């Protein structure tokens, strides 16, 4: 059932996100060509360059809005009547939404990266591209075991932070669902409260003191995993025990 839920959420998100990605990639093509053909002055270039930057920032904002909106619309609004009528456990719904959020955040990152690469690859000449390729190879060659492990930890921790961020938004929506009025205000308050609480705990408990960072890597994982568990439990508890769709 999890795969099916993810499939339908993915479809819902793709209807909004793919057109945005297409615009961004299209603008990167145009921008790259203008740079290549030395058409890099005048108002048209300025307009395209600005539109490209706006599209990159906008796609990031759009993905956050869409991920939040899918959770809200799919589980807490009218669509929730269908979602919760499906023979699926509440936890499975939450995991599906979480997976969807992570998948689209990764897609968003890849789309931005691809856009920048497209501009660079079109604009650069073959000599510059060869130099860039050699530079990348050299960088990889310089990497020893410790650097690779460090990079893997950085990627894992970034992914966990991404998951924690998505879980926080879901928990905030779930808590706001308990209130009849001022839901947006409650959401904002909840997010702020959790961020402050987490910062306090991270500073006072996880780190040894204000200037010393503990070297134990598991503490870094723990400071992401604990909030994920707390946010997910709150979301599950409210959706499973306190749900009241209106």
């Amino acid at each position, binding site marked *: 059932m999890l795969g099916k839920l993810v499939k339908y959420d993915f479809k819902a998100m793709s209807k909004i996100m793919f057109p945005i990605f297409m615009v961004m990639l299209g603008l990167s093509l145009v921008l790259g060509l203008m740079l290549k053909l030395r058409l890099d002055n005048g108002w048209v270039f300025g307009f395209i360059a600005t539109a490209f930057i706006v599209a990159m920032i906008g796609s990031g904002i759009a993905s956050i809005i869409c991920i939040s909106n899918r959770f809200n619309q799919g589980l807490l609004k009218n669509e929730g009547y269908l979602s919760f009528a499906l023979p699926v456990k509440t936890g499975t719904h939450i995991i599906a939404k979480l997976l969807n959020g992570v998948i689209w955040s990764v897609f968003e990152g890849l789309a931005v990266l691809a856009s920048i690469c497209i501009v660079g690859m079109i604009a650069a000449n073959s000599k510059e591209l060869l130099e860039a390729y050699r530079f990348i190879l050299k960088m990889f060659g310089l990497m020893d075991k410790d650097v690779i492990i460090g990079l893997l930890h950085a990627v894992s921790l970034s992914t966990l932070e991404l998951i924690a961020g998505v879980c926080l938004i879901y928990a905030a929506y779930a808590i706001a669902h308990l209130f009849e009025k001022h839901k947006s205000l409650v959401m904002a308050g909840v997010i702020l409260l959790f961020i402050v609480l987490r910062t306090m705990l991270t500073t006072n408990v996880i780190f040894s003191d204000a200037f010393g960072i503990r070297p134990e890597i598991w503490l870094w994982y723990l400071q992401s995993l604990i909030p994920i568990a707390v946010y997910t439990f709150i979301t599950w508890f409210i959706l499973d025990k*306190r749900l009241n769709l209106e």
Partner: protein
Amino acid sequence: METLVCEGLSKSYGSKLALNRIDLRLEEGRIVGLLGPNGSGKTTLIKLASRLLVPSEGRITICGEEPSEITKALISYLPDRNFLPDWMNSEELLQMYGDFFGDFDEVKALEMLNNLNIDMKMPIKKMSKGTRDKVQLILTMSRHAKLYLLDEPIAGVDPASRDYILNTIINNYDEEATVLISTHLISDVESVLDEAIFLKEGEIFLHKNSDELREETGKSIDEYFREVFRC
């Protein structure tokens, strides 16, 4: 076999008591009218059976099981609002129902949609309210469920559509299933009801066989309802 059983079932929203110690038993193969004015607890009872709400007290079971993902597979639920994802079209919805509900009869649903000349590619958001209501009903009634929970299926629709909706319900429910129809438009549904439940201020005022009720009171269910719930 009993399809739906409530024992001392209560539900409160904060300090407001919506259902008060309901005891109810519904047998299979019956069409039951859940009748009552607005705010009498009809939707709350249906939501409890669908596990959209959790009881404050007491117990509710469907085919002997407490509400869970297992009972959701046995229940075909039609809420009192537009619940279909508006970005989907009928074709995608048929696929979705087929994916999630093992008892969904896609051929039957397709036949009903074709009979109404509904464009399978048209997104739900572009459909008129009447068409959307019919698509929702067709999807709900195309399942071979044990319990159909229909919350206000004819509210806010024109008389011609009411006939279509009622005929669809009667002609498509599984013979061994129970159909619970919540409504306050009694005259429209009276003819199809085997039993009637009057809900008054969160309590069961009466639960009787339709024919017995008419014989005992000498009135139609609609007339008797108006007498009981006169303001």
